[in-house]
């Protein structure tokens, strides 16, 4: 951070299958243990990651600085990058290499950590609290450990005061406010509010933007720490659970009768 408080912020975003996809369209290939994405449906930026971009932009607007976005993958990486730029981010790098395929959370954290080191200076790294596909919520915390920097997870707001961060986060019985030295990593949660929708000028800038691609050699990612061979817990089965119950539908001749019947049945099962 310079004397004026300008911040260098790095945001990590992930393209995922749209989590709002209705259950009826969600399918799994039981042989490959993979989700079958509906044809022609593009991936979206994980919603928690849009919050991380939003949080970065709010800080940039308040303090000045620069927002750099990182993403990892093979599919739809440019789409999510363009969205981040359209929202107001300044630049982005795409991490892509056949050696990265099949990476788990630890490998992802290793690759992102190497990319952060290549960028060099930063005050703050922001991630979503979890990717809304695998819902693990580990990459941010693991990156912070690999970088040896402080971490706060599930934040709802970030403020900068006297060269330090003031981060409020959500816990089961309320919230906690922390003072965090810079540089730090913070993961964002839904309680921070809505992310902005990209608008006119941003969309035009994003359409023309180029995103350099970095492979394993560019960032110095170690082969033993990336890709499917490095996976620590392997996926042995992915399936759609059936929670189906037999539902008895109450029918009355009018709403009053139906309500009376329902009350009777509810009282019979009420503890």
């Amino acid at each position, binding site marked *: 951070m310079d004397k004026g408080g300008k911040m260098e912020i790095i945001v990590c975003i992930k393209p995922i*299958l749209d*989590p709002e*996809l209705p*259950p009826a369209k*969600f399918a799994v290939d039981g042989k490959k243990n993979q989700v079958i994405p509906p044809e022609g449906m593009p991936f979206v930026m994980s919603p928690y990651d849009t919050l991380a971009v939003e949080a970065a932009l709010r800080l940039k607007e308040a303090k000045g600085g620069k927002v750099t976005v990182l993403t990892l993958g093979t599919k739809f990486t440019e789409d999510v990058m363009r969205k981040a730029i359209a929202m107001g981010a300044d630049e982005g790098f795409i991490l892509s290499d056949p050696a990265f395929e099949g990476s788990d*959370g*630890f490998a992802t*954290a290793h690759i992102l950590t190497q990319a952060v080191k290549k960028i060099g200076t930063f005050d703050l790294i922001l991630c979503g609290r979890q990717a809304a*596909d*695998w*819902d*693990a*919520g*580990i990459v941010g*915390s*693991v990156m*912070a*450990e*690999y970088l040896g920097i402080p*971490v*706060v*997870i*599930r934040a709802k707001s970030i403020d900068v005061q006297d060269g330090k961060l*003031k981060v409020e986060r*959500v*816990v*089961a*019985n*309320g*919230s*906690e*406010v*922390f*003072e965090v*030295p810079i540089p730090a990593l913070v993961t964002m949660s*839904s309680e921070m509010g809505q992310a902005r929708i990209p608008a006119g000028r941003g969309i035009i800038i994003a359409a023309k933007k180029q995103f350099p691609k970095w492979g394993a050699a560019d960032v110095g990612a170690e082969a033993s720490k990336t890709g499917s061979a490095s996976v620590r*817990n*392997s*996926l*042995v*089965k*992915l*399936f*759609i*659970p059936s*929670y*189906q119950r037999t*539902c*008895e*539908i*109450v029918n009355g001749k009018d*709403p009053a009768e*139906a*309500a009376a019947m*329902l*009350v009777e049945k*509810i009282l019979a*099962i*009420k*503890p």
Partner: protein
Amino acid sequence: MRGKSMAENKTILVIGETEKGRTASITRELFGGARALADQTGGDVQLLLFGEAAAALAPEGIALGADKVYVASHAAYNEFSSDAYTALVSDVCSKITPALCLLGQTDLGRDVAPRVAARLGASLSMDCIEVNFDAENGRFLQTRPAFGGKALAVMASSKGRLQINTVRAKSMPSAVPQDGRKGETITLAEAPDASVIKVKLIEAKKLETEGVKLEDAKVIVAGGGGLGGPAGFDMIKQLADLLGGVVGATRVPVDENWVPLSMEIGQTGKIVSPELYIAIGISGAAQHITGCINSKKIVTINRDPDANMFKISDLGLVADYKTVVPLLIEKLKAMNP
């Protein structure tokens, strides 16, 4: 880590939590799971507790199934600190080299488990609803929801690597304390190394929960986006009161600020398992169902006969809640004047 072979050590370490000075329900549940696993692996179960008051809970930990209890008794551990707890859990794991370390999918577990796994090079599965032992292959299998609860994934641990799992509330049966169980208590009196504490808590804003918590409620009346606004919640609150229940919500009413976040049930909210769950104006998104599916009986009121919620319900009424809920309230009042 390297001294003893991890493959030979069968210890299961439970990271304990307290709740208002008592053993937390999640910790009792972890013991339910840990004891069953230990009986299959032939290992022992050890417990780590934090804070000055924890020593008083060690006997209960032994009664619940611990063979050895570590009490980090320094006052610096009284309140949760991610930095201090991460350092301590990492230290204890390095010393006792367990095969499996179990935490709750709680504020503590979400925070500490990934950090410890990063430090120790451990394997990690978060938010597990089942942890099983595959005796044939000598590995642990974890079942966990993914894709917002639309799918379940079964993960397998790799042999010889410490396995860390966080476990979702209400997914393992609580252990029943057994009088006369023997165990050892070891006090770890040292303060945490001040240099590891980078993040400083400057304010804790406690939300006082009125009455029964959703997680402990026997009856829940939950409202979804179909309620159309905060007024709908006033209506279902009356119904909940008459049934001795608590009001919950899905994500939409929370996102729309009709109700506070503390009322959210689902993947990113509370996981509940009441005897009776009444879902009103709830379509039944996977991420909601994953939070309420362990309810004993589910009743759905929705004007859309095709609402997914009916498929997972025991009892249903196809009707507009605005018409039918006042009638339910009237009927209940008439029965209990």
